């Protein structure tokens, strides 16, 4: 090395510092080329990401808006409470079919009164403009407050899926010609109703609160149950994963002797992180459901499976964070007479915390988007009851999860469900985005301290 500097053996030819020699030029070119490759790689991935996001958003944003019909309904006593008792048992006897008939009659009458009629649209066609979910909605309302019977109320119901699609541009008069569920005349009536302010489009709160709905009622399908299910699972995964993962990592990094057993454990943790997630689903099915007899489709089982899946990731991230703490800090603590545990908890863990939290949140984000193992433990089932609160055993109630709901809707025939599926993906992405932001904020917050 020193020889080259003295140029004594000619290892580096002499030359002016201001003239680029061939060798330097070659090196500079290589550097420029490499920078270009990097830039190209980043650009390509950004373009792919943009295309993906644009597709999803153009398909899914419309699911955040929803058409609904507002009209006056007279709650006729003879239809809803023929016995005139207002007794719950009597009111219960009138089914949704009865309410459906009433709504159909009332809508026809209302539109006639407002002069909104189109030639060739039968009473049945008019009644079909509102969601099949509406009768149940009205029935629940009346059962909750029987004094409404006999009154005339302004009632706002979801529009039928095709009408909803028409207002959002998914359904056209051309497609209506080939559609048994809707006719061009009905669409014409919808236009009239829209001008009259009877048919309106607003923000779709129901998308976030309503449970899933059957094939004929895409307009009533929401993410309510899936959101609760996912939230329960994330909570349980966090509660199970973080302590277990951190404890295991601390043990392996700070206390375990280095021998064949710990090597074996280490290799296995890395392997577990690479196991396809569906394998964890099969494991969950065999162990938690068949052997331990935990209920199918429950958030608890889902969380157990996801915990198994996430734990290796969390352990690997945590160990890396612990290992990144400089050994001199440990020496310093031990040197003033701190015990091993004090060293770990007072100095190593606070230093490693940003890394641990980031790893855990990214692991959670992974778990939030995981579908395959949940399909195997039955979370794809159609669930239209909300799970109870955690205190009332809600972790054992059937539920679905966001990604599973995406999968479920995407596999249904009606285009309205495809729209909702894309909408659910947007919600899922928003959550993942939020989690990453939280990871970054936590990281900054902890790091800025020193």
């Amino acid at each position, binding site marked *: 090395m020193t020889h080259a500097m003295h140029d004594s053996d000619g290892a580096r030819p002499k030359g002016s510092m201001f003239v680029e020699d061939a060798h330097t030029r070659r090196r500079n070119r290589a550097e420029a080329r490499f920078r270009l490759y990097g830039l190209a790689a980043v650009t390509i991935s950004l373009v792919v990401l943009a295309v993906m996001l644009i597709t999803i958003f153009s398909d899914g944003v419309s699911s955040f808006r929803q058409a609904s019909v507002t009209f006056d309904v007279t709650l006729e006593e003879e239809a809803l409470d023929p016995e005139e008792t207002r007794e719950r048992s009597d009111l219960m006897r009138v089914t949704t079919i009865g309410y459906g008939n009433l709504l159909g009659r009332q809508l026809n009458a209302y539109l006639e009164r407002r002069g909104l009629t189109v030639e060739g649209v039968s009473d049945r066609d008019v009644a079909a403009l509102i969601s099949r979910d509406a009768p149940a909605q009205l029935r629940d309302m009346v059962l909750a407050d029987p004094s409404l019977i006999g009154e005339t109320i302004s009632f706002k119901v979801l529009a039928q899926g095709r009408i909803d699609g028409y207002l959002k541009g998914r359904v056209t008069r051309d497609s209506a010609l080939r559609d048994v569920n809707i006719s061009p005349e009905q669409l014409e009536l919808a236009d009239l109703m829209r001008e009259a302010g009877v048919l309106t489009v607003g923000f779709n709160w129901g998308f976030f609160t309503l449970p899933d709905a059957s094939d004929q009622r895409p307009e009533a399908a929401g993410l309510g149950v899936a959101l609760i299910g996912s939230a329960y699972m994330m909570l349980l995964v966090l509660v199970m994963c973080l302590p277990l993962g951190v404890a295991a990592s601390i043990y392996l990094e700070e206390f375990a002797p*280095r021998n064949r057993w710990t090597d074996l454990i280490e290799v296995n943790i890395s392997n577990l992180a690479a196991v396809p997630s569906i394998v964890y689903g099969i494991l969950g099915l065999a162990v938690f459901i068949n052997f331990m007899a935990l209920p199918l489709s429950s958030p608890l089982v889902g969380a157990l499976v996801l915990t198994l899946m996430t734990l290796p990731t969390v352990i690997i991230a945590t160990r890396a964070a612990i290992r990144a703490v*400089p*050994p*001199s*800090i*440990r*020496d*310093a*603590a*031990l*040197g*003033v*007479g*701190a*015990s091993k545990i*004090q060293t770990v908890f*007072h*100095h190593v863990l606070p*230093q490693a915390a940003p890394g641990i939290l980031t790893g855990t949140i990214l692991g959670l984000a992974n778990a939030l988007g995981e579908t395959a193992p949940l399909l195997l433990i039955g979370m794809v089932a159609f669930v239209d009851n909300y799970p109870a609160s955690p205190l009332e055993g809600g972790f054992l109630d059937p539920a679905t999860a966001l990604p599973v709901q995406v999968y479920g809707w995407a596999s249904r025939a009606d285009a309205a469900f495809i729209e909702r599926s894309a909408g659910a993906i947007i919600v899922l992405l928003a959550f993942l985005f939020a989690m990453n932001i939280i990871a970054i904020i936590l990281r900054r917050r902890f790091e800025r301290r*020193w």
Partner: protein
Amino acid sequence: MYDTQVTERAVDSKKIKFQCRNVQVYYGSTHAIKDVNVDIEDKTVTAFIGPSGCGKSTFLRCLNRMNDTIDSCRVEGDINLDGKNIYDHDVDPVQLRAKVGMVFQKPNPFPKSIYDNVAYGPKIHGMARNKAELDEIVEKSLRRAALWDEVKDRLDTPGTGLSGGQQQRLCIARAVATAPEVLLMDEPCSALDPIATAQVEELIDELKQRYSVVIVTHSMQQAARVSQRTAFFHLGDLVEFDDTDTIFTNPHDPRTESYISGRIG
């Protein structure tokens, strides 16, 4: 109270703090310390000198069992502190290290505030009953490490934000704060300017009135200035161990002579 002359005359009758017999240290298959016998006296400054890589730090780390943290490291022989072998099974290394403090070769402040750096030891050993007492310990320790005037206005700023020399003095303050009986210092002045070095040497002089101090140094002048006893290591062997005066004026071993006069190292 302690007159220097009195101390110097009393050297022979001083209590032995560390008695090391046939100490061997291995890193895996490397024999880093070979059969070393040393007596470290109480209320004395003992200097370890020798060329780089000869095992000074290794031996120093044996005295408070910091070598335990290195998996490949194996220590054999007896090291007795006040007559008790510190490598016995019933000795708790944590309590040992509270008694035998250490300043490391590279400054290693905690990534916490200056105050917390110094207060940490006293806190975990329950040396202060309240905040006022803790404040007092912190101030006294920082003063003794000649750092107080520079940091008194920013005790809550991170210790890692200090300059290298200040960090080293912070580490000295941290070690002093736990009131150890023996203080091991591994090249405490290698990052310090002459003024701070003089202050640290003053501190060492003061400490020796109550404690036993072992200092590793590459500066012959420093060894001559601060220590009463000097040990010369070479390639893992303890070549010569004697009164500092003797080592520097009349060494027995030719290797010592050539190291001191700058021919090996």
